[in-house]
């Protein structure tokens, strides 16, 4: 994590790699500002995604012959229920924000030129916003009665 850690005035007795912090000090937490709220968001969305993403993967890819059964009629039947539309929309939004922020955190470690980093992150954010809009529109406006006889 690209977090500025304060070096203690007197190094810990089990100093680790010259940081002054003990080997088992654990992970430093961002103290304030946007970085702290992103830290909170990653954990809150992470807990929700444990159910949303892992559940989605198990339902769609593992149980009941997996993706073999997925087609237009399957989606039409599934999205008759507001429960699954809400599930899929929450998964879409949380996974996109969680993932794009994850890419930003990684970019802080590997892209040292600020201009390039801003450009790369701008590209990720732009992709995320476009896909969020596209996915939201489809989840909420999908109506299989436009194609009679094919849905259920």
């Amino acid at each position: 994590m690209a977090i500025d850690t304060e070096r203690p005035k007197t190094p810990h007795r089990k100093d680790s790699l010259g940081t002054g912090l003990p080997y088992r000090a654990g992970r430093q937490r961002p103290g304030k500002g946007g970085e702290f709220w992103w830290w909170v968001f990653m954990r809150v969305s992470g807990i929700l995604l444990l159910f949303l993403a892992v559940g989605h993967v198990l339902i769609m890819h593992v149980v009941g012959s997996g993706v073999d059964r997925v087609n237009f009629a399957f989606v039409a039947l599934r999205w008759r229920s507001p429960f699954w539309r809400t599930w899929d929309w929450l998964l879409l939004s949380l996974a996109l924000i969680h993932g794009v922020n994850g890419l930003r955190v990684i970019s802080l470690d590997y892209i040292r030129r600020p201009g390039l980093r801003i450009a790369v992150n701008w590209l990720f954010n732009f992709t995320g916003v476009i896909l969020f809009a596209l996915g939201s529109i489809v989840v909420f406006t999908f109506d299989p009665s436009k194609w009679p006889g094919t849905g259920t």
Partner: protein
Amino acid sequence: MALRRTAKSRTAEFGSLYRGREGQWSWIAHRVTGVAIILFLFAHVVDTALVGWGPNAYNRVIAVYRNPFIRLLELGLVAAVIYHALNGIRIMVIDFWPKANDVNRQLIYATTGIFVLSMIPISFIIVTPIVEKYFFTFPSWWPF
């Protein structure tokens, strides 16, 4: 050049990011699986959105998932999601209960163990239809 000097002095001051043991490998695995998942998600939102363009468009694009090679990538995706989830639980345990850091290495082996155990049945479930379609039919006692 200025950038290079900064990089060097940071390494001299704080040491490398890499500590070379289990913690480093779980950290790398968390990043690699995370990047793989978000890159797949970018494509997956587009292919799922095609459902809004009707059955012809959607059924054509979803047929890609029937390809046996894509099936192996699908298995990799499921593995990535499950690993990222389990390792994420471990990270949160350490964040909210710092004492757990004393047994971090054991926790890493525990999450890896649960991951491997859960991937055994999942791998059989996903790979069995490919084998049955292209190679041979399993006897009736085969559970997957």
